């Protein structure tokens, strides 16, 4: 009987000692290693397309980066496309999720253009633009600086006269891309958009 008590006592005591020591150590460690802010946010932000479109439900890319760092799903960025999801998954070491978007057309690179003859100069689009890419003053015609436009289409909704269109981003007249060399038959066909052949 005493043996059993002794054993139990020893066990309780032993574990208590271990727990106490461990607790003290971790208490000091958590103080010594406390972190301010989350540097991870910048790494995530660097992978986002910076359209600032708000389709993820956050007002801009940086806030979404903060949300991802806080554990939000990585597939909420339609302009970035599946590619961005893959990169985020790779960076964060999480599973790749399918893109959470309505249609596939979101990946197209668009810019806003103001039909200048219809513009009434209400400045509503200027206030909506997250990157200050629309210039103009009240009662005067507005114009989109194409190079700065991210194609977020946040300016389309506020326009009272529907004079803003989204068009494919204009390319330099001497832009060209070499054709893809033929690839011998491969199981990667789907992956790179080449037909079996």
């Amino acid at each position, binding site marked *: 009987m005493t043996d059993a008590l002794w054993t139990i006592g020893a066990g309780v005591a032993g574990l208590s000692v271990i727990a106490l020591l461990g607790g003290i150590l971790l208490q000091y460690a958590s103080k010594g290693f406390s972190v301010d802010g989350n540097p991870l946010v910048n790494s995530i*932000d660097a992978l*986002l*397309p*910076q*359209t*600032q479109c708000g389709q993820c439900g956050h007002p*801009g*890319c*940086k806030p979404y980066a903060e949300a991802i760092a806080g554990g939000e799903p990585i597939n909420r960025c339609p302009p970035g496309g599946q590619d961005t999801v893959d990169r985020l998954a790779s960076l964060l070491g999480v599973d790749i999720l399918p893109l959470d978007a309505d249609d596939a057309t979101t990946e197209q690179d668009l810019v806003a253009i103001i039909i200048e003859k219809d513009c009434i100069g209400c400045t509503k689009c200027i206030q909506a633009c*997250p*990157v*200050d*890419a629309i210039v103009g003053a009240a009662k005067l015609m507005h114009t989109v600086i194409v*190079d*700065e436009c*991210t194609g977020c289409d946040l300016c389309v909704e506020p326009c009272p006269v529907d004079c803003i269109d989204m068009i494919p981003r204009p390319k*330099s*007249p*001497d832009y*060209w*891309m*070499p*054709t*893809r*060399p*033929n*690839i*011998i038959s*491969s199981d*990667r066909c789907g*992956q*790179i958009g080449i037909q079996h052949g």
Partner: protein
Amino acid sequence: MADYQIRRCERQLEGGIHPETQKALSTTDSCIFVGDPKRLVFPIHFSGGGPGEALVAVADIVSQGTPIIKCQSGITHVASRAGKVIDIIDHEIAHPAATKSASIIIEPSGLEDQNYLDPLVWPFDADTLRNRAIEAGILGLGGAGFPSFKKWSEGMQTLIINGAECQPYLTTDDTLMRIDTHSMIRGASMLSQSLDIKTIIIGIEDNKPEVLEAIESALKESCSDCFFDVVLLDTKYPSGSERHLVWLTLGIEVPTGSHAVESGVIVHNPGTLAALSRAIDGKPITDRIVTLTGEALAAPQNIVVPIGAPISHLIEATDTNPESLTSITIGGPMMGYSVTNFTAGITKTTNCLLAREVDIPPESPCIRCGACATVCPVRLQPQQMVFALKGGSLDRAIHEGLTDCIECAACNAVCPSHIPLAEWFRLGRFEARDKANDQRLAAKARERFEARNMRLKRISLEKEAKRAVRQAKTADALEKARKARKESA
């Protein structure tokens, strides 16, 4: 007599290949002028020097030398013959993009109607020369078409004349250096003197003894103040690549991502310097030497043709029926591209039309034999890069050094699996360029977004402060009013 020396290059090209040169095919002692074609085609955006705009309208009458296209870089292209602008339409172009592009079509009238610039009189400064190069449309005539004046910055030490012409079949520079030696030397001397360059290096491969002779005799007659260093290179492809020529002749490795100019070296094609010499006399580039070669042509040779002449016109000049050919390679067998529509006009960068039947065996999988790495003159690992590109990872290919590739296609020539490595790398480099551009735009957008947020925050704070002041004032006034009311009561 100019001060000069002739020496053999002491350095050996690492990598590289010895393809069968086939230069004898088109080598001739003289260079014939062919008759004017029925029409001339000038692509507005693809003539070299960046996207441009037309300076003429349909039905305008132009003289030989009238500016017709002004490019973004400033370079002006002129009409190579007098005639009438008959159309400005989308036309086939001689370009690897293989698309149609807006072009000016001129119908030559056959008149000797010239509209040249005033000759420059020595001494002139570098700026005068730069303006002249812009007006005369001087581009790198070797194939890249880089606006020459952009290389002429201050503080350059050496001018290298790139007469290596290492690509098989090509004899354009060979011909030019033999028949137009004096212009080339004069252009180089003028350029060097206006930029205060003391040394001019002429790099030629040792398979051009006639050129060496011509240069030596021209140098003996020349009265240039510059020192000419004629360097004989081993015949090996690609010794004529700009960075390799700089290394072979000077021992300078041009750092990744920069140009020879940033290392104090200007490299020019002999044709460019000869054209510069004529531009100083007032004549803009209207013609160029083109090598017409290949086993499929009846009479391979070098000819002088007006810029804009259709490819079919050149083929006819070699007694060959254009319809007997299915495609023609522009720019030599290694780095050239194939064109199937012969109505496209030649541009200033068209140095060679090559017609030959090549039977490329079907591609088989890469076995990582490393033959490509052995011949790669920049010591890349092409087998790894193509593995990454085919596997869909541009990032990995860039990490392996994709952007350092000079697209010399030596790897293509030795690949036992017949993989078009250089095509993959070209595509990859273009994609890398687009990606870098996207990243630049994204960075800019991020900056503007953050700036806007800061501004909005500041404005709202200011408003807040103002409101607080206003509220305090109102409260004050109310208090006073209340007090006043009390007192009055």
